[in-house]
């Protein structure tokens, strides 16, 4: 069974087709980079795969199930354009909250572990709004990896980032891949994908 299967997906913005009959499959443990110009529909496709957006036609399956099913959502890790953490909470509170929401067995312990892995253990009680950009991005990486997802969706995350969070993300991916063999999607509009074997153009 494919980890991710996109079958004949169309997406319309008004009468403009942002995606036209997209078909792709990714096996478990594989990595796939989507490369295309700005406005080519990379983020749109990723949001459809993540279940944030409904396709106009066609369907998406994550391990054979629809993306919006509860069990499927637990298997997806997503880093979008925003960092998706609360400014008013501390790093530890953020990760503990998301750990609880994702049903992690011991959310506080997992949060502390991931803070350590991403180099944020020193500022774990600091409010996110006081963090630098790099620290916020590291925290976003920790949030996405916290529940050890089977499918990682990384939306153009390394381009606007400084080197350190990007390296941190690669390290976390490598560590996670040794444990659960996630499938990764990484749309990018420039730069080289990380030694990933397959690319697909939008």
């Amino acid at each position, binding site marked *: 069974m494919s980890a991710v299967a996109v079958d004949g997906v169309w997406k319309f913005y*008004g009468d*403009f087709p942002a995606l036209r009959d997209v078909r792709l499959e990714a096996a478990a443990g594989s990595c796939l980079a989507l490369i295309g110009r700005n406005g080519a529909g990379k983020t749109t496709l990723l*949001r459809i795969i993540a279940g*944030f957006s409904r396709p106009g036609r066609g369907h998406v399956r994550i391990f054979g199930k629809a993306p919006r099913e509860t069990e499927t959502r637990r298997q997806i890790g997503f880093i979008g354009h*925003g960092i998706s953490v*609360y400014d*008013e909470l501390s790093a530890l509170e953020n990760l503990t909250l*998301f750990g609880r*929401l994702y049903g992690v067995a011991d959310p506080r312990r997992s949060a502390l572990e991931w803070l350590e892995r991403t180099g944020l253990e020193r500022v774990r009680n600091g409010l996110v709004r006081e963090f630098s950009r790099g620290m916020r991005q590291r925290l976003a990486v920790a949030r996405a990896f916290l529940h050890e997802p089977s499918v990682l969706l990384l939306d153009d995350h390394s381009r606007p980032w400084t080197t350190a969070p990007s390296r941190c993300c690669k390290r976390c991916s490598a560590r996670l891949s040794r444990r659960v063999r996630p499938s990764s999607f990484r749309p990018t509009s420039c730069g080289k994908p990380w030694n990933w074997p397959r690319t697909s153009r939008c």
Partner: protein
Amino acid sequence: MGFFRQVAGHRGEGLRAELRTKEAINASLAFALVILLLFSFAFDPTEETTREISGGLLWIVFAFAGALVLNRSFRARAANDCLDALIAAPISGAALFLGKAMANFLLVTGSRVGLFAGFRHLLQCAVDLAIRGTHAGAGAGHLGVTVIGTIFSALTVNIRLREVMLPMLTYPILVPALLGAMQLTTGAGGRQADRRRTRVAWLKMLIGFDVILHRVSLVLVETVPGGMMYCGQDGILRAPVGNRRKGRLPIRPQLPKLPHRSWDAG
């Protein structure tokens, strides 16, 4: 994770975030105090008429000050795409909604306590109703305001002019709740014994309205996160018009153009 733990998690997060920033509470209290100050100059506190309309004055302040709190409940979460993360999490929309509604209810109730202090000082006539009437009707009234305000706050989170749209959408629906709460608050300082029966009738209506609102909201709530996603992030409201470049033909079939009819031809 159990449903109620999810609800408690969202409630705790909402309260903690607000108590750290105090943005909504401060704005709400400041607005309410200004209105109360104006009322205290406009109406003579010693007159019987002021006593009779004091319930209405109080609920005008509550309703508008509450809108300031409710307006921020989801908007503050949309700042860093936090809503994306919440929507992606394997939790039910009902848990998210109930958690936010509970946090909002506690915040609105907290600000109400502050408002009563101002109300007592500025309009002394309302002391009686502040003590008795509020506990009877304000809780139920606030519950209705909070539930409707929370669900519409979620719906309007990504649209333009949301600060205007939220009151425009919620107040017409809230008319029964505001009427009931107003009647209960005013009636609590009542002078006649038969007012008790009227108050009970209004309270029953208010509780029934709250129950219906809750049920409808919980039915709708699975659609609301979808509305937040589909309309705000990538839906028609923010359609990328700039991407309509040449060479990308619209898929919608083009209707044949009708021949131009010139009225000047004749």
